[in-house]
């Protein structure tokens, strides 16, 4: 039997078994859950290589599943992060109600993502896409808070995306008579001009929703912050990358042949740039860690969209590398938030402070995640940022460089806020009892953070498969021109050599750390955070010495005009419209998951009907 189909069967069977076993006491369901995630992943790593395929016919459609190099790259993200998140979830989700549903959805979403990546025909692509949407939707409403607001927002946007994609698929089908992606790409150049514009736009709306591109990002902060953190790391790290995957295919496969593709690219790239700036600014204003990371995800996806939009080889490399990095560090950070929330019961900066000495490993993982996020060498985030800037400068997008740079510099603000809010500041009495998160939660974080460290010095490890994926999409070989194992080049041949940089940083850091430790070691002592220079006063018991309220107020005041326009635009105009739409749809949708599932099934049925009646096949 073909390994590909076997993987899916094990996923499905595992999901159902875990769901059934969820009411049995003991560790059975955990074991089943881990097994049904890890076994297929191990099979994927051992039994499958790029180029494998599996074809079958069902209900009059030809289904073709094949592992392309690009798909393989994204599958690496999905499987790697999936396993880590699964291990994390087992520990994090203990003692939660409805655990069976969580496990079921978790496995299903991993499966559907792999399905999307392996599909070479639009029907299975769309079906897996919908499975992914449902399962993630059920995760968003899983905790039952603010379902009306957040869940419906997510669902509406997903539905908009799905409709758009479906229309595009129908159009493609009517034009080519085939559901194969390859066929679509090949015949794109021959489409009529209006079709050449409309089809990519519809596809991009579908993919843009998932990758939270402005103005389709409205659902993202709520959905990311409301699903369980164990899933959000996967949600933000891997699931959103499906949108990027789709975009890469569209941009490389279609827009490359589009006569006015240049303008199209600029629009997409600027949309990405605006997404990056908006996401960053909003993230700075957040007081809840989940929201902060959610907006930060929006911003990071913005960078990736910029890279994909520009579409030069270096930009593509940058975008895909950043996609991998984002999965690593955002996975780490969401897991860290989950760990803190589990240990303290809240994820709000204004409540939790001074955890550094209580949760040192979580801090270490977050620190590395944050350094990677901020793009500071020697961790991996820098490589992605570097390639993005060089590609933008090399391809004459000067203003976009400034926009991206603004966003990336402003990102330091929320990076610091994240670390400061949770870990630094006063060590308060109310958090004295807090202990380090369980081992099973810490290990995945540390592994993922370690990944950012490794890739910061040896980005070639990941760029190599990326490069292979790009070659499949029609780009020339990039090795030696833009990258080596531990070296990067720009268009003009200027280089960054990463390995000696790492050694230099480590050497200097170690030297001065040792200096600071050894000098006066005997007379250096620890004092509590209450013994600070409070101008001679002794702080009273109830007085709060941690500065976290309105952390970046002066900065936000400085960018007020920018923020104001955003608020006006999205939430007063666009947002109001969306709210009105919600009110309308709320009458149709009752707000529980089954109804939506039913609705989606009806949707597919209609689609099948359409296919037979309209096109007579």
């Amino acid at each position, binding site marked *: 039997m073909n390994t590909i189909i076997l993987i899916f069967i094990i996923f499905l069977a595992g999901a159902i078994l875990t769901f059934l076993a969820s009411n049995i006491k003991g560790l059975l369901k955990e074991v089943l859950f881990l097994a049904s995630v890890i076994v297929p992943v191990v099979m994927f790593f051992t039994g499958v290589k790029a180029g494998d395929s599996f074809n079958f016919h069902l209900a009059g459609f030809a289904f073709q599943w094949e592992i392309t190099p690009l798909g393989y790259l994204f599958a690496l993200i999905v499987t790697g992060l999936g396993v880590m998140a699964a291990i994390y979830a087992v520990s994090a989700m203990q003692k939660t109600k409805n655990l069976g549903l969580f496990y079921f959805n978790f496995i299903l979403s991993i499966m559907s993502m792999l399905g999307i990546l392996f599909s070479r025909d639009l029907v299975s692509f769309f079906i897996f896409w919908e499975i992914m949407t449902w399962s993630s939707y059920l995760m968003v409403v899983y905790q039952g808070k603010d379902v009306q607001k957040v869940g419906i927002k997510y669902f509406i946007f997903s539905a908009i995306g799905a409709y758009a994609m479906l229309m595009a698929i129908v159009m493609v089908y009517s034009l080519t008579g085939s559901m194969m992606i390859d066929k679509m790409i090949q015949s794109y150049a021959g489409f009529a001009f209006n079709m050449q514009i409309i089809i990519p736009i519809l596809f991009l709306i579908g993919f843009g929703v998932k990758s939270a591109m402005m103005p389709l990002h409205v659902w993202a902060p709520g959905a990311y912050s409301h699903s369980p953190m164990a899933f959000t790391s996967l949600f933000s790290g891997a699931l959103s990358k499906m949108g990027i995957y789709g975009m890469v295919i569209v941009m490389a496969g279609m827009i490359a042949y589009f006569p006015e593709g240049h303008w199209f690219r600029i629009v997409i790239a600027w949309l990405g740039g605006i997404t990056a700036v908006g996401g960053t600014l909003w993230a700075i204003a957040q007081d809840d860690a989940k929201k902060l990371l959610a907006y930060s995800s929006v911003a990071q996806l913005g960078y990736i969209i910029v890279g994909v939009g520009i579409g030069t080889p270096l930009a593509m490399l940058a975008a895909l590398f950043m996609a991998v990095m984002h999965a690593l560090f955002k996975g780490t950070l969401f897991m860290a938030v989950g760990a803190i929330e589990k240990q303290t019961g809240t994820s709000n900066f204004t409540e939790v402070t001074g955890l550094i000495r209580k949760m040192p490993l979580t801090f270490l993982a977050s620190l590395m995640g944050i350094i990677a996020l901020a793009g500071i060498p020697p961790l991996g985030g820098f490589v992605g940022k570097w390639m993005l800037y060089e590609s933008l400068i090399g391809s004459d997008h000067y203003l976009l460089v400034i926009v991206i740079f603004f966003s990336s510099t402003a990102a330091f603000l929320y990076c610091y806020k994240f670390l400061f809010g949770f870990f630094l500041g006063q060590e308060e009495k109310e958090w004295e009892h807090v202990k380090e998160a369980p081992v099973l939660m810490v290990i995945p974080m540390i592994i993922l953070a370690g990944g950012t460290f490794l890739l910061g010095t040896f980005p070639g490890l990941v760029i190599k498969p990326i490069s292979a994926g790009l070659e499949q999409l029609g780009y020339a070989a990039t090795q030696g021109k833009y990258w080596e194992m531990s070296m990067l080049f720009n268009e003009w041949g200027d280089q960054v050599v990463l390995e000696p940089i790492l050694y230099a940083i480590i050497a200097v850091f170690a030297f001065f750390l040792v200096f600071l430790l050894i000098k006066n070691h005997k007379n250096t002592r620890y004092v509590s955070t209450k013994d600070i220079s409070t101008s001679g006063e*002794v702080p009273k018991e109830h007085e709060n010495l941690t500065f976290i309220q309105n952390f970046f107020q002066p900065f936000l005041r400085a960018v007020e005009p920018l923020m104001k326009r955003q608020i006006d635009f999205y939430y007063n105009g666009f947002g109001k419209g969306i709210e009105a739409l919600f009110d309308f749809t709320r009458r149709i949708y009752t707000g529980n998951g089954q109804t939506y599932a039913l609705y989606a099934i009806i949707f597919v049925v209609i689609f099948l009907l359409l296919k037979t009646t309209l096109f007579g096949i």
Partner: protein
Amino acid sequence: MSYDKDSHKIFDFIQNWARKHSIWVLAYGTGCGAIEIPPTMTSRYDAERLGVRGAATPRQADVLLITGYLTTKTLKRVIRVYEQMQDPKYVIGFGSCTINGGMYYDSYNTIKVLDKYLPVDVYINGCMPRPEAVLAGFAKLQQLIAEGKANGAQKYKENLEWYRENQKRISPHWVMPEYNW
């Protein structure tokens, strides 16, 4: 020098020379003597040419300048600040009030003899001492540092119990912060 017993003499000399020429005074105007500090620091008298400059927080400061009378309320803050300063540290009592209470000898709210509560290295008398006197006080302190005799902090460490007792006497209900020394 009594701080590092194993160190060599020439090293001590350099160290004391550096300490002597870099005196960072904590910005704490405890009493009315604070009015003569700005003239001391500014153009005519310019204490900065002797290496004297202000420090904003106790962690960075070397010298605690008690400028004049100390009320009991201020004394508590002064003690906290003094204990937050890092060795080597010196105390200069400035003005008659720190020596014997000055004209507030019968006030119920000011302490009369500073060296019962904090180890004073140098006293500057006068009400109020002129900037020249302040500079002379700094010069005296420099001389003591150079000779290695400005070891008030050492004395404080060794006789902590005695100082504590005296400090508690002014206000029996005052809870000391527990983290000192």
